[in-house]
Structures are given as C-alpha cells and as structure tokens.
C-alpha cells in the first residue's frame, strides 16, 4: 500500500485509532498505577475512549446533529442518534462510578494516610479482622 492510500485510510479511521490508543492507556494505567487518584483518572480515560469509539460509529461525514430543523425532514440528513444515546447513558454510569471511587479513596486516606494502593494493601494485611 502506498503512503498516500495509507494516510487516507488512517485519516478516515482517526476516531477509532484514537479510541484504541486511549483505551490501551486507560486500561494499563488502571491496572498498573499505584496511586489511586491516577487510577480514577485512568478509568475516566478508558471510559471516554469507549464513548469516543461509540460516538464515532454513529457519526457520518457531512451530516448534522439529530435535532429537527426547519425544512430538513429526511433521515438521510442527520447522523445516527442511537450511539449518542448510549454514550449519554454510559457517561451517567461513569460519573457515578467516579464519584463512588473518589468517596472511597477519601475514606481510605482517613484510615491509612496514603493514596498508594500497594502501601495500603501491605498495611491492610497486618490489620486483624
């Protein structure tokens, strides 16, 4: 494949490529970071990448947002609204998970005076039930 064709392909897939890269970054950080606050950030990056992926699948070049306008009636003028609806639901879920996560980290900090996950786990092992 020559360079030009490759670049055209890459540009047309820009959202998917970005989504995959972001998902990788988010997933690895969520798994490997020790700092809990960074874990929360990573979780948000991961979820956002999925939303980007979903939203990009509903997006069609040259069409407008699915809000009824004067004079435009045909469905072929609008982008697909369903992925947007899914993304909205997903954002609600992700916001509530982040809020819960943050509250939990705050609570942990009160008990252990650190947000480092490994240190917490080592300290927790020593505590009796």
């Amino acid at each position, binding site marked *: 494949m020559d360079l030009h064709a490759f670049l055209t392909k890459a540009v047309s897939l820009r959202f998917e490529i970005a989504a995959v890269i972001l*998902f990788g970054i*988010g*997933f690895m950080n*969520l*798994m490997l970071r020790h700092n*809990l606050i960074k*874990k929360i950030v990573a*979780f948000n990056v*991961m*979820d956002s990448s*999925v939303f980007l*992926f*979903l939203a990009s*699948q509903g997006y069609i070049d040259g069409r407008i947002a699915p809000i009824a306008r004067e004079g435009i009636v045909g469905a072929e003028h609008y982008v697909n609204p*369903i*992925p947007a609806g*899914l993304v909205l*639901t*997903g954002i609600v*879920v992700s916001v*509530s*998970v982040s809020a*819960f*996560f943050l509250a*939990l*980290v705050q*609570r*942990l900090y009160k*008990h*252990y005076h650190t947000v480092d*996950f490994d240190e*917490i*786990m080592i*300290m*927790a092992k020593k*505590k009796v*039930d």
Partner: protein
Amino acid sequence: MLPIYQNIPFVCIFLCMVCGITMPLQKNGRTALWTAVAACLTVSLLCCCLTLILYTGEESFVYQMGHFPAPWGNELYVGPLEAMLGMTFSAVMALSLLGGRRTLMEDVLPPKQPFYFTMMCMIMASLLALSFTNDVFTGYVFIEISTLAACAIVMARDTEKTIAATIRYLVISLLGSGLFLIGLAMLYCITGHLLMPQLRQKVFMLLVMNRYRVPFTVVVGLLTIGMGIKSAMFPFYAWLPQAHGGATTSSSAVLSGLVLKGYIVFLLRIFYRVFTIQEIRALNITNVMFAFGVAGMMVGSLMAIREEHIKRMLAYSSIAQIGYIFMGLGLGTDGGVQAAVFQIMVHAVTKPLLFLCAGRLSEIRGHEKSLYRLRGAARQDKLAGIGFTLGGLSMIGIPLLGGFAAKAFFAAGALTMGVKMWVALLALAASSVLNALYYIPAILALWSRGEQDPSPAAPDRGFMTSASALMAGVLALGTMAGPVIAVIRMGLSML
C-alpha cells in the same frame, strides 16, 4: 390485551427499585429490614407463580416496555428458566437478610442501616434485570448498578480491612466492565442492533456468509473475560476472598451466592440468544472457558485447604464452585450448560447457608473467625452446626444433597465429549476429594469437644427460620432434581 401474568417481570424489578429508594425514609434499620424481606418474598412468590404458568403452558414471552415495538423499544424476555432463577435469587436474598440480621445490626452503624437495605434492593433489582432483559445495553447498565451496590455492601462493615478490600474489588470490577463495554460497542458496530433477537438475526446472517469471524471471536472473548473478571473466573479471582470473607454475614452470603451468578446468567443468555452455543463452540471460546473452569476448581480448593479463617475458606470454595459453572459452560453441549445452570441454583442456595451458619457460630464465640477458636461451637448452637455440616457435605457431593445432583449432571453432560470427558470426570473426582479435605476437618473441628463447657447460646429466630429454609432447599434440590432440570431444559431450548 396483555395477559396479567406478563406484567410480573416488570413489576418485580420495579418493586425492588421503588423499595430501595424508599429505604432512607424508614424509621430505623429494623423496619427497613422487614420491608426489604417482604419485598423479596413478594417477588419470589410472583416469580414462583410465573414459573408454574410458563412451565405448564410451555411458553415464553417478550414484554415491551412502554409498548414501543421491536427495533426501537426496550424489552424483557422471560421463559420458565428466567422465572425460576428469579424465584430462587429473591428467596435466597430474603433468607440471607433475615439470617444475618443480628450481626448486621452490630456491624453497620444505626444511621447507615437503611442505606444498606437500599443497596440490597438495588442488587435484587439488577439480578432480576440481568435475568430478564432482552437488551444488551440495559444489561450493561444493570451490571454497573450491581457492581456499585456490591462494593457498598462490602464496605458496610466499616473496618480498615474491608475498605481496602472494597477498593480492590472496585478497581478489578471496573477493568471487567470496561472490557465488557468495548465488546458491546463492537457488537453494536458490526450489527447495528442492541436487542437480542435482532442481534441474533444479523449475527446468524454474517456467520452463515462466513464474514466477521475474527471480530466476533474478539467480541465473545471480551464479553467472556469481562464477565469472568466480575464473577471470579480462574485467573481473575484474587479480589474475592478478602471482599467476601471480610464483609458482614448477610453481605457475604449475597455476594457469594447471588451477585456472582447474575453476571454468569447474563453471559449465558447472550450466548444462547445472540450467538448460539454451537457458534460459541465453533469460535473456540468454550475451550478457553473449560480450561479456566477446571483450573479454578483445583486452585480454589487448594487455597481453601490452606485457609484457617472460616469465612475466607468459604470464599475460596466459591472460586472452586464458580469453576464448576464455567467448566459446564465450557463443555459447550446442552447437557453441560444444563448442569451449569443447575449448579448456579445449587450454589445460590448452599453457599448462603454455609455463610449464615459460619456467621452465627462466630457470633456465639464473640466474633472469632479462626477455625481453631471455633472448636466446639456447633455444640452451642446445634442448628447452625447441622446447617454447616449439611452445606459442607453438599459441596463434597454426598448423595441426596444438591451438590451431588449437580456433579451427576456435569458427568452426564460430559459423556460424549472425548478428551474433554476424561478431563471433566477427573476434575470432578479430584475436586470432590479436595473439597472433602477442607470441609471435613472444618466440620469435625466445629463439633469437637472444646475446653470450655458448651452452654447453649440464646436462640435467634431469624437465623433459625432462614437456616431451616435453606437446608430444605439443599435437600429439595438433591432429591427432586428431576423437575428442576426439566424446567432448565425447557427454558434453555426456548432461548
């Protein structure tokens, strides 16, 4: 005009959610507890009626939410299998709450108690929704609700250890739901649908034309691993023992007995209703599940043998039991999957019984958890001792008890499978021995003569009721396995 019984699934889910929301308005923990128990028992009764109607009528139905027709609206699909699972789950939920109430009232601060029951109602609603929904994205939303509520009931017992366990549980669950969500997004992108029947048509069409085989393998792999992480499939179980072993008694019972199953049931329904089990087999995912299941059966039991803390031992045993379920799914035959569903029911009844009895025994001994300190505790509360013994024997696979019937079905399901048959039969035999290696010493320790004089403990009527009911359940599943497996068979054939 809709027949009246077709409203039952929606009413059940809605009742649990409304109950959950009204919990903070309750005066105190006691009234909240009784409201939650009443709601769960009502749901159980309704689902029981529904099972009978659907089984005798040999029918299943689709309920349209708000009467929007298929490609646009949201739907519930219910057959005899779903109704029976709903019945079991809600009954076990009510009994777990009732049986652990005394420890619960001590472990959870009084102003927080109503919120605890909010979470329990949300878990109940999401379990029902995961069993009934016909829309994969709705399933995802309820998976998240269930995850958050499950984390909340782990940390309800507010000690330093449980909070650390909660955060670990939450992080790993989030990894799982991230993978599941990307799997769903890919499935939607390939097919353009979210409702299971429409997905089925498109997937069938594409697979017949032999297109998108690799993407479908990736999708099924992501969905399986996502749900596997959440339900403690073999390599992803590290979060479970501390989360399930450290929580208060009712939470442990619900988490081990029910929450893990909700995810598996949903995965199973996706397998049957979107793909078919033959296609899953053709995509080779079942082999992976089989291997992980067998490994889980061994590793869970081996870890349990080393464990001295009674509740953590039960938690490790859950990993082994989940391994059985994945092994059954991994067989990829109708017989194997039927056995897996039967095992879901057996474990949903047996493990809460074990956790409640263990919780009761440790409560008698001043909340000691180590087996050494619990020696002779069974003599102080005979019923708890008998319950633990019965549950343990069922896990080992003694005839007349639920666990034996499940193992027999697994063996029967594996018979036509060649190499897999030998692996499955050997694994079943080995895991029975391993189960015996930790349950028998535990049972003997509990019944042995301790140093101190066994004075009978003050009776706890809530515990007595729920332990007796769960024991009856274990015996009923063992002795009357025929009708149950008939319902499962009919339900699976309709999916």
